[in-house]
């Protein structure tokens, strides 16, 4: 009794990675506060972060492996038995249907870098190229767009900016500690421009809030570019030395007059001028960020490319207060794409969406569902999934449910019996983020963060799970490290530091400086300046030109979003989903009682004029139907300034109001394969109770 | 210096605290005729209802007066010799003062009804009344309440909550005219009926008599008579100023004081229910008989007795309580005769019935029969009304304005 400790570590209730201090008593976390020494979050956390103290101790947390019996009920079994049976079944399926008949799916719940690397490694180690993750629905589109242009993803240096522009992103809810950085910049005088279809939390502090017609951001970007060219507010030195395709940009931008752009985007020419005025005053200290809001359209990647070109044209690239290019840590690669690419085994989605496969090595989760159901082009029978709940979070829930139940073997590793876990044949209890040693790295700040095994319930960490499975499947040689700790030491080795070093600063261990304007030095020393085919910033993508895929342009031309390109009078309203609530993270945390009590339901957020036209008021129940299916939910009438008229928003992850019942899984951005979560055409009808 | 205070209530305690803030040394003597520690009249109905236990009645430092250097004398003041600065006390003889505060409060009056003065008929005004009513409440079943002021309605709510059958008789055509406007009164009457209270307005009580079985028989003009086990009367209050008769201190129904709480006699102050001071609306002498006003006046008086020169910017009447499951509150002017414009919040505001009142373009008052959340609006309006600030905004925007205002300094 009375064994108390306070540990400083990293929150993993969402992907923002704030610094926390966990108060632990007798192997139980009792309270979580912010860690004041953390270099980004500076002692502040969101309600999810502190609610972990409840979440991790919930009585329905799973501590023993579960196996479904013939009646369909779960029975507790020993871990040894579970691992043995799962490995045997996976091998059996591979023997019977082919090595690629199985796959691994890493969910958002265990973060990206390290655990992602482990699952990618595991898949290839046991001979299947089919690694899946949440990244074919979120994040990777932006990754592709930025890498196409810069060969890296530059990070906004908000705190030193003169102008901050956010496109379809809402830091307070989705990247909480950036709000502090944005405010730090503002406190020093930066202006804030928010471009969003919704008047979000961050818009409340904007100097200029721009309510744009959904999916037309690319047109606005081109309009801004045209105006910058016209005013000659271009960093010619940078453009001449470090970019390719500027003349094509000048040529293509010509038609995007303010009047034309206004027609497309519903933003007046005056506001476009105002934005460019601010860029003029601020540049090169222009820090901008693009959020998921832009990704989920058929023109997502191109819009993002067009937007980020503004930064380069303004000379913000790798400047203080601009867009800082990250510096690597020279860490070893956990994946086996070079040693064992397995391309001949036809990774799911790689042919249809070659860009995302080549640039990110992501197999496509939406295509996976079709493949499970059709058995084409080859049978897919066994799936091991960790920390994901696609029944709620993938597009077209109905299909997801059908597909997952058609598997011969479905294994889920999770802390709780989620909607998805309930469909599994085996459920393996997961260790939480306070139960494993893990590292995170930030290339812009050159900082590393380490966590530790602060709680121990005898549960397998991700590494232990992966290692054991590999060993039982005969691929143990790929996982020589005894445990997470040994693995981490191996990962750190090339840096010259050890985990012990990192533990001296859990709020951010700084590996060194990240100097600005590295491209100038690189140019001088003859190094490759940017990691693109030409070594330059590519307004015009040489990679895409070489691929020559029909319908994909090397210059990010503007195309209208799906709902405008294919209007459907039967479904007159535009539904967008994916905006989060501060209490929840995608499918997670509805089981935390205090949060659930404060927000038990999802709501269809709509413009008052639309509500009026439909005869709806706050709290009314409605049925929302797309050509996929329908779901019932509750109306929330917003202020007229809060949402673009004609468009509606519904947050995902609510079991009783599951918007993903109706999201399209068959309309994608051709480059990234991302589903169009922000272009769902729907009709809305009032229903009684 | 010797400071003397008559009374041991709200005004007196506020005065002591504020006097001591400025003067740590001089002696303070408090005289009160009510025995025991100082208690809070406001809480009597809460104890009667059972919401608060008996010992919570007593004010926090009432038993620690000596630690504040206060001498307490339990006695009645019979008269004041202002020429000699001496008080004549019932048992303790003469008491000299350098500076005097009259904070003797008020008492409930008996209306001119035949048979009103007899056992079984009570006020709810003192701790004694409470003690006796506690017994009636636990033994009897039917109560008639005569009068519909703030205290009467609280008595009715207490009786109702404790399962008694309640009948309320009001001579005027509506309830609580000092607290609510006509519509608010109506809503309150409806609300009380929902709780089973029989409400009689425009009803004159002719005579009260006791029957042989011990029940009271109440004869009403033009209405059917009613019976009761006991009766509570709340029909008017009068200041405790009998002892001023032979002094030069000016008084009428109460004692007029200026902005410094000074009476017409240089070293004599008055505060609380007993005094009539300036109001924020420019009246020279108003008596509210309200707790917050007593506290404010006491505070000013205490400071000035200690040699300060603090000016009171006038009292603002305000009332609040929770009864019959609604919050009743008001502030300033809200009766139609005193205002020239008003705004009633709609249902969506979540306030209940809430009327914002204007006169000459200024907000002068507000009255509420609704939710407790809405009370904070009254609080925020207080400085606006007090300082006569013009708010040129649609009332629906008022909340926003009031909140934003604090940050515009």
């Amino acid at each position: 009794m009375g064994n108390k400790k306070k540990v400083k570590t990293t929150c993993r209730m969402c992907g923002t990675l704030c610094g926390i201090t966990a108060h632990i008593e007798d192997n139980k976390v009792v309270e979580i506060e912010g860690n004041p020494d953390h270099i980004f979050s500076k002692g502040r956390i969101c309600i999810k972060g502190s609610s972990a103290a409840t979440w991790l101790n919930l009585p329905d947390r799973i501590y023993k492996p579960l196996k479904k019996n013939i009646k369909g009920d779960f029975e507790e079994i020993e871990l040894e038995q579970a691992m043995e049976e799962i490995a045997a079944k996976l091998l059996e399926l591979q023997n019977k249907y082919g090595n690629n008949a199985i796959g691994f799916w890493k969910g958002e719940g265990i973060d990206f870098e390290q655990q992602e690397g482990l699952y990618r490694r595991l898949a290839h180690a046991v001979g299947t190229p089919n690694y899946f993750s949440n990244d074919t629905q979120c994040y990777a589109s932006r990754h592709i767009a930025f890498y196409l242009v810069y060969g890296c993803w530059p990070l906004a240096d908000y705190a030193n900016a003169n102008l901050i522009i956010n496109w379809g992103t809402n830091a307070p809810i989705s990247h909480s500690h950036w709000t502090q950085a944005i405010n730090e910049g503002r406190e020093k005088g930066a202006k804030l421009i928010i471009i969003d279809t919704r008047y979000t939390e961050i818009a409340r502090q904007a100097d200029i809030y721009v309510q744009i017609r959904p999916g037309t951001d690319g047109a606005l970007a081109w309009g801004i570019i045209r105006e910058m060219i016209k005013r000659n507010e271009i960093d010619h030195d940078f453009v001449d030395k470090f970019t390719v395709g500027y003349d094509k940009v000048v040529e293509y931008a010509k038609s995007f007059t303010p009047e034309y752009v206004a027609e497309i985007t519903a933003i007046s020419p005056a506001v476009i001028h105002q934005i460019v005025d601010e860029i003029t005053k601020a540049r090169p200290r222009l820090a901008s960020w693009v959020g998921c809001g832009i990704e989920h359209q058929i023109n997502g990647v191109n819009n993002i490319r067009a937007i980020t070109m503004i930064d380069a044209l303004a000379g913000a690239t790798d400047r203080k207060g601009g867009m800082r290019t990250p510096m690597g840590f020279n860490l070893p690669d956990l994946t086996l794409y070079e040693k064992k690419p397995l391309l001949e085994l036809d990774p799911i989605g790689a042919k249809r969406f070659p860009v995302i496969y080549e640039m990110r090595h992501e197999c496509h989760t939406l295509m996976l569902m079709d493949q499970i159901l059709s058995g084409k082009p080859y049978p897919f029978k066994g799936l091991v999934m960790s920390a994901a709940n696609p029944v709620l979070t993938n597009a077209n829930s109905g299909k997801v449910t059908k597909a997952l139940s058609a598997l011969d073997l479905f294994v889920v590793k999770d802390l709780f019996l989620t909607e998805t876990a309930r469909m599994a044949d085996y459920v393996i209890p997961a260790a939480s983020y306070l139960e494993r040693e893990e590292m995170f790295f930030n290339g812009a700040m050159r900082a590393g963060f380490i966590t530790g095994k602060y709680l121990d319930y005898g549960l397998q960490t991700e590494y232990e799970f992966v290692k054991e499975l590999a060993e039982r499947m005969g691929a143990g040689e790929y996982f020589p490290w005894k445990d997470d700790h040994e693995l981490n030491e191996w990962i750190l080795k090339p840096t010259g530091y050890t985990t012990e070093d990192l533990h001296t600063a859990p709020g951010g261990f700084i590996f060194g400086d990240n100097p600005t304007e590295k491209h100038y030095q690189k140019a001088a020393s003859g190094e490759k300046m940017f990691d693109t085919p030409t070594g330059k910033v590519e307004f015009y993508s040489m990679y895409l030109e070489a691929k020559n895929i029909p319908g994909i342009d090397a210059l990010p031309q503007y195309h209208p979003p799906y709902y405008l390109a294919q209007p459907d009078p039967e479904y007159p309203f535009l539904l967008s989903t994916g905006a989060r609530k501060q209490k929840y993270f995608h499918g997670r945390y509805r089981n935390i009682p205090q949060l659930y009590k404060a927000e038990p339901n999802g709501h269809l957020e709509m413009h008052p004029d639309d509500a009026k036209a439909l005869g709806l008021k706050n709290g009314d129940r409605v049925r929302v139907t797309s050509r996929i299916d329908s779901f019932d939910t509750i109306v929330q009438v917003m202020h007229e300034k809060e949402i673009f008229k004609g468009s509606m928003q519904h947050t995902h992850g609510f079991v009783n109001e599951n918007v993903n019942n109706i999201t399209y899984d068959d309309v994608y951005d051709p480059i990234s394969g991302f589903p169009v979560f922000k272009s769902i055409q729907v009709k809305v009808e009032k229903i009684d109770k | 210096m010797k400071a003397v205070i008559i009374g041991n209530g709200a005004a007196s305690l506020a005065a002591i605290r504020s006097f001591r803030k400025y003067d740590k040394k001089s002696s303070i003597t408090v005289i009160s005729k009510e025995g025991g520690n100082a208690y809070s009249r406001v809480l009597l109905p809460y104890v009667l209802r059972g919401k608060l236990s008996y010992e919570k009645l007593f004010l926090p430092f009432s038993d620690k007066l000596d630690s504040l250097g206060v001498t307490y004398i339990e006695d009645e003041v019979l008269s004041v010799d202002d020429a000699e600065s001496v008080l004549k006390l019932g048992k303790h003889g003469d008491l000299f003062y350098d500076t005097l505060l009259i904070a003797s409060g008020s008492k409930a009056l008996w209306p001119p009804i035949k048979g009103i003065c007899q056992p079984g008929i009570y006020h709810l005004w003192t701790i004694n009344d409470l003690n006796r009513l506690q017994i009636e409440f636990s033994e009897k079943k039917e109560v008639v309440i005569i009068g519909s002021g703030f205290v009467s309605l609280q008595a009715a709510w207490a009786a109702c909550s404790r399962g008694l059958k309640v009948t309320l008789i009001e001579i005027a055509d509506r309830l609580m005219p000092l607290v609510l406007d006509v519509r608010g009164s109506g809503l309150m009457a409806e609300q009380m009926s929902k709780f089973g209270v029989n409400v009689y307005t425009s009803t004159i009580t002719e005579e009260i008599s006791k029957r042989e079985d011990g029940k009271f028989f109440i004869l009403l003009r033009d209405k059917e008579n009613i019976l009761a086990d006991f009766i509570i009367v709340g029909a008017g209050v009068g200041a405790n100023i009998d002892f001023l008769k032979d002094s030069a201190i000016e008084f009428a129904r109460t004692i007029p004081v200026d902005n410094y709480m000074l009476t017409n006699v240089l070293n004599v102050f008055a505060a609380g229910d007993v005094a009539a001071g300036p109001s924020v609306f420019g009246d020279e002498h108003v008596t509210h008989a309200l707790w917050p006003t007593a506290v404010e006046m006491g505070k000013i008086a205490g400071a000035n007795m200690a040699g300060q020169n603090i000016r009171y910017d006038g009292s603002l009447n305000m009332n609040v309580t929770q009864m019959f499951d609604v919050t009743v509150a008001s502030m300033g002017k809200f009766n139609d005769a005193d205002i020239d414009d008003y705004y009633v919040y709609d249902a969506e505001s979540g306030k209940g019935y809430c009327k914002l009142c204007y006169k000459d373009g200024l907000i002068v008052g507000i009255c509420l029969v609704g939710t407790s959340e809405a009370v904070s609006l009254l609080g925020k309006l207080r400085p606006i009304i007090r300082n006569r600030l013009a708010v040129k905004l649609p009332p629906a925007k008022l909340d926003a304005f009031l909140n934003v205002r604090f940050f515009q300094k």
Partner: protein
Amino acid sequence: MKVITLDTSKCVGCRNCELACAFINSKETCERKFSMIRVNHYIEEHAVIPMTCLHCEDPWCMAVCPSGAITRDPETNAVIIQDEKCAGCKMCILACPYGNIHFDAELMVSHKCNLCEGNPRCVGHCISGALNFEEIEDFNERSRKKVDLEISKYMKQTCKTQEVDSNGK
């Protein structure tokens, strides 16, 4: 003595403070009605206002409370309401000029911020930096710096001096 300072130029109305406050008070829910800090967002005014008790020097609520339920915590300097003494008369709600006292309809008593015994959770959950728990002097110092910055910017503009940066712009 430290106080909670509120910076309306930073608050985005994410309401993490409300959620945290409601939970620490109720121990079981984050519903807004249990929170002692309230953030209001006024779209038309383009303003977000977080509000919680300022623990005034001369608190009117404390003076007016007829049951002496409101006192000052000698350790934290917080103005606090003692549940067991509160009659639920709401006089304090009427008294507070900032609307910072709230009514607990279940216990039928008034509630307000008590500074969480010196570790206000709202501040730890303020992800924008708008809330701080600090010495009032530090707050004033920060405010002064902001004004200085404004002045220096103004001076720069009027003197038409231009910063020449590495870009030669």
